[in-house]
């Protein structure tokens, strides 16, 4: 079952109702676990439900057994390993087992793997979000070993890992933060306001994901499908494709995250934010604080800190990001282009550390870098660098990536005007700190939750327009959105 369907919305809604009914009891985890199990068993009941044609939802084709049972089996194994860790309060073995499970799935799903059954099973598990729930499980085991989950039962922890809104698309929430939210006292006004805010956030996410995503995808398609070659390169085609792909990835992922965060509010739970206007950042370090922040925080806490502190002090700022971002690349898929993408980001982070050292050594450089024009130039550079790295992210193999790099040079020479427009747009975007800060402050989870205040808050009125536009799109076209959630394939 795709997570961005009416069916999944119904499943989340049913889990939310059950959660509110059981919230004050010790069995509240049952509601979340049942929601998660409903999702993992969907290959069994989904075809039966879709015997009748339902508008906007295509009837799924029959599935092989590995595809039906693997997601459920991997999920149950994950819960079992977490329980071992919770019971023993020792993290090493369960973390190693969970890491091995993820490594198995990632290698078996790689294009070069020729074990057909393992590959089918692994790809099915990835489609069901194993990359996300295993990372949440690892964090839960580590937190349990540090005594941070002492008040939580096995059912609570299983319910957390199965929490339907974020189950297969993130953010990678920490168990301790989740339980703090789940146990806070019930306040009727705040809860109703929070749920309304959640619905608005879902509308905002749908607008990004569907409306903006469809437009960006259209322009990104020639690049993303790797159909651009030397012989049919129209001036500007690759530049347009790459920048559109950059926008597409952002609206696709952050739109889906908005929906997940909004759906969590229907349970009265605020989960962590995952995006904070990442393309308006003056360096790669800040970019990673704003792009898929729950993953970068996870990598920081459980890989970067332990690896970095074991390296010589002079080596750590340069070697540790290369290692960690290399692993981050492989988390997306065990292929050479993903590894190259990760290493490019690691090298960029290391280069930023070297740049900071230069800044500290030179008063003039420090003054220029801290000025508005300096920050603008750095933001444009960061946007261009991140966009360049998407070439490796999107390529099926290194050869295609290098062809695209060569084509990009050619295209930039052929279409300097387009390059100039992209640079000017990025500069203008980073040059309006007032607008950026306003968007950032309202993009955060702390918004007004009283309905009377919401009616007057500009952001919620924009959300309402987003919902109307999405509704109009469905009524007029009567088609499901194309493309799906990109990060569900990692």
């Amino acid at each position, binding site marked *: 079952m795709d997570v961005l369907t009416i069916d999944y919305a119904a499943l989340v809604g049913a889990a939310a109702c059950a959660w509110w009914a059981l919230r004050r009891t010790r069995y509240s985890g049952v509601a979340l676990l049942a929601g998660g199990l409903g999702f993992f068993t969907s290959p069994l009941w989904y075809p039966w439900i879709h015997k009748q044609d339902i508008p906007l939802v295509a009837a799924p084709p029959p599935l092989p057994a590995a595809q039906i049972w693997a997601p459920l089996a991997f999920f149950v194994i994950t819960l079992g390993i977490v329980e071992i860790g919770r019971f023993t309060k020792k993290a090493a073995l369960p973390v190693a087992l969970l890491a091995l499970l993820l490594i198995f799935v990632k290698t078996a799903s790689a294009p070069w793997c020729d074990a057909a059954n393992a590959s089918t099973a692994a790809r099915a598990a990835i489609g069901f979000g194993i990359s996300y729930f295993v990372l949440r499980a690892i964090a839960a085991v580590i937190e349990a070993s540090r005594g941070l989950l002492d008040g939580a039962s096995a059912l609570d922890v299983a319910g957390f890992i199965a929490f339907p809104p974020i189950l297969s698309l993130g953010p990678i929430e920490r168990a301790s933060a989740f339980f703090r939210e789940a146990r806070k006292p019930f306040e009727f006004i705040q809860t109703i306001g929070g749920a309304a805010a959640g619905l608005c956030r879902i509308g905002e996410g749908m607008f990004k994901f569907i409306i903006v995503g469809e437009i960006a995808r259209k322009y990104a398609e020639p690049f993303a499908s790797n159909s651009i070659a030397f012989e049919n390169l129209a001036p500007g085609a690759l530049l347009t494709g790459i920048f559109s792909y950059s926008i597409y990835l952002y609206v696709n992922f952050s739109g889906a995250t908005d929906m997940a965060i909004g759906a969590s509010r229907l349970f009265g739970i605020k989960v962590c934010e995952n995006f904070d206007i990442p393309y308006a950042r003056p360096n790669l*370090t800040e970019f990673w604080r704003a792009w898929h922040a729950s993953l970068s925080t996870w990598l920081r806490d459980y890989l970067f*800190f*332990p690896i*970095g*502190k074991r390296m010589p*002090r002079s080596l750590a*700022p340069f070697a540790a990001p290369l290692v960690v971002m290399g692993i981050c690349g492989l988390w997306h898929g065990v292929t050479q282009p993903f590894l190259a993408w990760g290493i490019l980001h690691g090298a960029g982070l290391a280069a930023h550390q070297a740049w900071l050292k230069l800044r500290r050594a030179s008063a003039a450089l*420090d003054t220029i870098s801290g000025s508005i024009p300096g920050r603008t130039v750095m933001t444009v550079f960061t946007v261009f660098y991140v966009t360049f790295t998407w070439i490796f992210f999107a390529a099926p193999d290194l050869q295609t990536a290098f062809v695209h790099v060569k084509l990009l040079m050619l295209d930039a020479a052929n279409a300097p005007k387009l390059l100039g427009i992209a640079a000017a747009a990025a500069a203008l975007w980073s040059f309006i700190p007032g607008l950026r800060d306003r968007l950032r402050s309202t993009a955060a989870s702390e918004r007004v939750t009283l309905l009377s205040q919401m009616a007057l808050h500009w952001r919620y009125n924009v959300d309402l327009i987003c919902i109307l536009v999405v509704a109009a799109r469905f009524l007029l076209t009567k088609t499901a959105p194309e493309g799906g959630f990109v990060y569900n394939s990692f």
Partner: protein
Amino acid sequence: MSESGSIENPPGDFTALRLFILQRFAKRGTTSIDDRASLVKSGLVDSFGIVEIVSYIESEYHVRIADADVAPEHFENLNAIRALLARSPKY
């Protein structure tokens, strides 16, 4: 900048670390850091900085900082770092 004259608080075992943070992370022209001044949330010290401080503490003070203690909240200000230093076992 002389080692003790640049520090507001009285010198002691912690002085070397205070100076290290001052010289390594503080903005240009800063001559002192208050014990409660924010380091991480203010952006002075980032993840790379935390790793650098941990390495410095371990090598200079001969203590072992546990992985569980390498977290931004333990490096938020000099007081938090002092508390971390005090509870970390010597080797």
